[in-house]
């Protein structure tokens, strides 16, 4: 990996990035509440990397590609439509769009372009794709970023939800490396909205809906 890629990836994957990562548990909070045993959390993390994360990563990669190919606003709208059709849970769509606002601020401040509209709204993976395009992050690293971020979100949330040695949760993320690579291999070459994978996870979606109606919660999603 060339040096510019390494620092970019580290920066965008850093939990200190001001994009609201602390509000997220990658669905872990409702999963535990519905009875997922702590011992199954690594399998949960793996299941996400095979399903919902593939949709997110595919969306970011295609948004990046179309943006670099001189994409106009309506190309990104088509990516957003494809993502939304592959994200049946309204709670998950609302959450990703809320996160998207933070990423839009990041994009407009750090990688501005003529004609940027501060009122522009899009889902997180679409904005992430645009950030990747403007900052120079390549397609494979864009997909890795989505996978890594998700795994790390599960691991970090676990520490707040169940008492555990932080070295244990960190080891989960490291152990997920082959799955993150497999995810990146699966989506890095995608160029069209219709090609975005649609791997669903019905229970993750159901838990997200339940969580949306819960008043006592640590994490937004």
């Amino acid at each position, binding site marked *: 990996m060339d040096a510019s890629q390494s620092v970019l990836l580290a920066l965008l994957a850093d939990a200190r990035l001001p994009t609201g990562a602390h509000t997220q548990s990658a669905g872990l909070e409702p999963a535990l509440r519905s009875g997922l045993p702590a011992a*199954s959390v690594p399998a949960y993390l793996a299941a996400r990397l*095979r*399903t919902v994360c593939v949709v997110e990563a595919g969306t970011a990669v295609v948004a990046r590609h179309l943006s670099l190919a001189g994409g106009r606003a309506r190309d990104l709208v088509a990516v957003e439509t494809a993502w939304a*059709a592959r994200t049946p849970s309204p709670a998950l769509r609302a959450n990703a769009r809320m996160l998207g606002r933070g990423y839009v601020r990041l994009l407009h401040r750090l990688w501005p372009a003529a004609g940027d509209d501060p009122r522009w709204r899009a889902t997180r993976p679409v904005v992430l794709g645009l950030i990747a395009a403007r900052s120079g992050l390549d397609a494979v690293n864009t997909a890795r970023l989505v996978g890594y971020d998700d795994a790390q979100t599960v691991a970090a949330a676990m520490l707040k939800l169940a008492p555990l040695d932080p070295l244990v949760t960190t080891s989960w993320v490291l152990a997920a490396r082959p799955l993150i690579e497999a995810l990146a291999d699966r989506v890095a070459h995608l160029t069209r909205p219709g090609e975005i994978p649609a791997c669903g996870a*019905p229970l993750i979606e159901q838990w997200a809906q339940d969580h949306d109606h819960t008043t006592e919660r640590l994490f937004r999603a």
Partner: protein
Amino acid sequence: MSTIAVAPAPGRARCRLVAGALSPRVLHADDGGARVALVATGALLLGGDEVRIDVEVAPGGWLEVVETAGTVAYDAGGTPSGWHVRARLGEGARLSWCGLPLVVADGAHVRRSTELTLAARARALLRETLVFGRVGETGGVLRAVTRATLDGADLLVEDLDLGPAARRSPGVLGERRVLDTTLALGWRPVEVPAGHRYDLDGPGAFVRYLGADTHSGTGPALAATSWRADLDLP
């Protein structure tokens, strides 16, 4: 391949029916459309079977497909089989297809695909009940792909890898054996007081039940009955 094509015509709708592994029979018809039963012409679903059903509803027409029996995908020692539905709805056309359960027995390896193309103002109501294993079984391999477009744009795309290991992952199905879904495409249907409801980003919604058996989830059944009224079928 089985074909059901319906087009409105003065007096009585024109129905083009072609029998394949499933034979279509008209139960009722008027000038706008028809209610058609699908009857299996032999044992289904065996290893190597590729069932294809092509449906077309012309602009302004209606079609209600009725299944007479559920389907068991039998132990095929892992030999793949398929169940593929393709439906095209013209402008303002209406389709109701509340299917009966597909039971995926041990040793079955099924690929199921449902492709729906809706023109503007078309509406489709579908029910899909997937059951893993007969009594005492854990069930075989299933991949279920649904792709619905409305006026050229993706409305719902879902690709479920429901092989035994993948579906038992936490967050997919876990230990649940039944995935029961009633799906409305082309409009936003009323709430029903049971099951988990998912409003799509575009006009559409589904109610889904994940559970241990087909009779404890009432949401999809309620939705199928209640939402059918919105199709204004005779």
